[in-house]
């Protein structure tokens, strides 16, 4: 009698066939190990995203912690507020310019380092990496003076060639390029990833290409580029996501003081979002901006992945 009950219970507890692993003690221990991440995910990722979506449909009053539902009006404000469009345009301008420039510059530097013996490359690698170790505030305060239109070293350098350097930090046309210059100065993280990829390209591919009569340029486009396309693809996606959220340098150079009166030429979505949320305390509207930014990042990333997969070469197929 008892055995019949047992077997009945066992049958009821049997897991569905599509779950391959059993719920045994190993599984329970595994869940215990990943528990910290699960809690963090539920609270600070999934929970936070739902919370943020809810807030975006309300007017959140920070002093009383009450949220008044306002329907779609925050999203309507996205269309009405001219600064949203300005900041979006600025952000896209920055991303479209900075990402290809950083990739090309990083690839060029990696290529140079790849061409010399490893011992010499080590020294240059350290020198090129130092800007990446500099805190963004330190970089911003140095470049605040270097980019000064009247007495900055950069315009002094341009002056040697008879070029009358622009007012980098005041002229709206040159504010975004200023931030791109600082970004290029600390490009070395990307450079190291691409250098590792270059070193991973098998030698025999070059030898085979050379035997077939391919010159240096042909080898670069037909061997090197396809073989490192994976790393290039990865860097492009990561840099694009970062560029669309750019904050530190623009904030430090232009919007540090609420009364700085800097033109909106470097007002990126990340900066405007911060201003709305933590200076104006319009949490609901800021949450709506955040969702707009998220949607844009998502669309661009999906587009890049779809488009990139056509060009990325995967060793051993996909």
């Amino acid at each position, binding site marked *: 009698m008892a055995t019949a009950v047992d077997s009945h219970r066992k049958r009821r507890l049997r897991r569905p066939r599509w779950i391959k692993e059993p*719920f045994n003690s190993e599984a329970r221990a*595994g869940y215990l190990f990943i528990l*910290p991440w699960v809690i963090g995910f539920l609270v600070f990722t999934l929970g936070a995203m739902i919370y943020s979506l809810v807030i975006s449909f309300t007017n959140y009053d920070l002093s009383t912690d009450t949220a008044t539902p306002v329907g779609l009006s925050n999203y309507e404000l996205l269309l009405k507020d001219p600064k949203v469009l300005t900041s979006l345009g600025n952000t896209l301008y920055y991303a479209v310019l900075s990402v290809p420039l950083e990739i090309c510059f990083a690839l060029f530097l990696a290529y140079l380092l790849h061409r010399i013996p490893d011992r010499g490359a080590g020294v240059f690698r350290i020198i090129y990496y130092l800007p990446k170790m500099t805190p963004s505030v330190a970089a911003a305060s140095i*470049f605040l003076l270097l980019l000064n239109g009247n007495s900055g070293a950069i315009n002094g350098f341009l002056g040697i060639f008879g070029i009358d350097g622009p007012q980098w930090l005041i002229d709206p046309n040159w504010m975004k390029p200023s931030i791109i210059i600082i970004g290029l100065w600390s490009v070395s993280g990307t450079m190291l*990833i691409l250098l590792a990829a270059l070193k991973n390209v098998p030698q025999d591919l070059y030898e085979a290409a050379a035997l077939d009569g391919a010159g240096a340029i042909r080898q670069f486009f037909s061997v090197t580029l396809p073989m490192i396309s994976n790393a290039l693809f990865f860097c492009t996606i990561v840099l694009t996501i970062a560029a669309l959220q750019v904050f530190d340098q623009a904030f430090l150079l232009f919007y540090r003081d609420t009364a*700085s009166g800097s033109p909106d030429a470097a007002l990126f979505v990340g900066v405007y979002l911060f201003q709305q*949320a933590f200076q104006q305390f319009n949490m609901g509207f800021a949450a709506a901006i955040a969702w707009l930014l998220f949607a844009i990042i998502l669309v661009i990333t999906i587009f890049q992945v779809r488009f990139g997969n056509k060009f990325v070469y995967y060793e051993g197929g996909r």
Partner: protein
Amino acid sequence: MASVLKSQPQAAAESDPRDKSTAAPSKHFPWYKPRSIVGRIVLWALLLGFSVLFMYPFVWLLAATFKPRQDVFDNRLIPETWVFTNYVEVWQQLPLLSWISNSVIIALLAAGLVTISSSLVAFGFAYFRFPFRNLLFGLVLGTMMLPGAVTMIPTYLIWKELGFLTTTVPLWGANLFGSAFYIFLQRQFFLGLPRDIFEAARIDGCSYFGLFWRIAMPLSIPSFIIVFIFEFQASWNNLQAPLIYLNFGSPDQYTVPLGISYAMSLFSPTSGGEADYQYVMTAALLVTLPMLVLFAFGQRYFIEGLAGQGRKG
């Protein structure tokens, strides 16, 4: 026994087919190294030229810290009049010592906690087999791509709700729960360890936690160091979180980045300062130095950690 164990991850790393970076052949003269003298001169000139470009701001900064106020903008790399008082006065002008100690405490907490939590989670994903493992790990990878801007506002409200708003907790608290990129990194490292040692230890009666604590952890010290120094740097450089969470207290509670940002405004002529940029420059140099020291000691780990990133795509 210990020596056998120690040599194993080394062997595992060497036999890893993806890890060809260390074994770049340099026996023959590869095609891409310039053969002609002219090519070599151009190459070295470019390398040195870029070195000058990258180093110039540092040299300029170092020089500026030894200049009196009116000379900061003269762009001389060797100061006309040497002034050593900036290094003394900056401590009186700005609460730099408080900033540095705040930043050190926060960075140590942030890095220490994220190293422990991420490695626990990573070991869970690397060793154990349980239902929905791949689905959950896919979610981990998914959160890596999630822009921080989306969760910034609710995270602030969550910390506010929990009553941690005027403390430094929001600057390291979330690190208790692991971080996607570090989980990925450490999982890769744990997967490189041969499963046989764990099975053997299980037969010898080792507990599941013992597998992590007594086998996986001692064998993965490099990956622990990588995660620790990456997060230490990230925390030390973080500007946005202190801006959100610490900007309302007195300047004594600031971290280094927030403090320098405050100093930039304090001395800026547009906001009523007297353009005492020599102090900002000295402070900027002083807070960059710890990072340069970190890099000097952990260079290998930085490069290894970054090179690993490219392989995950």
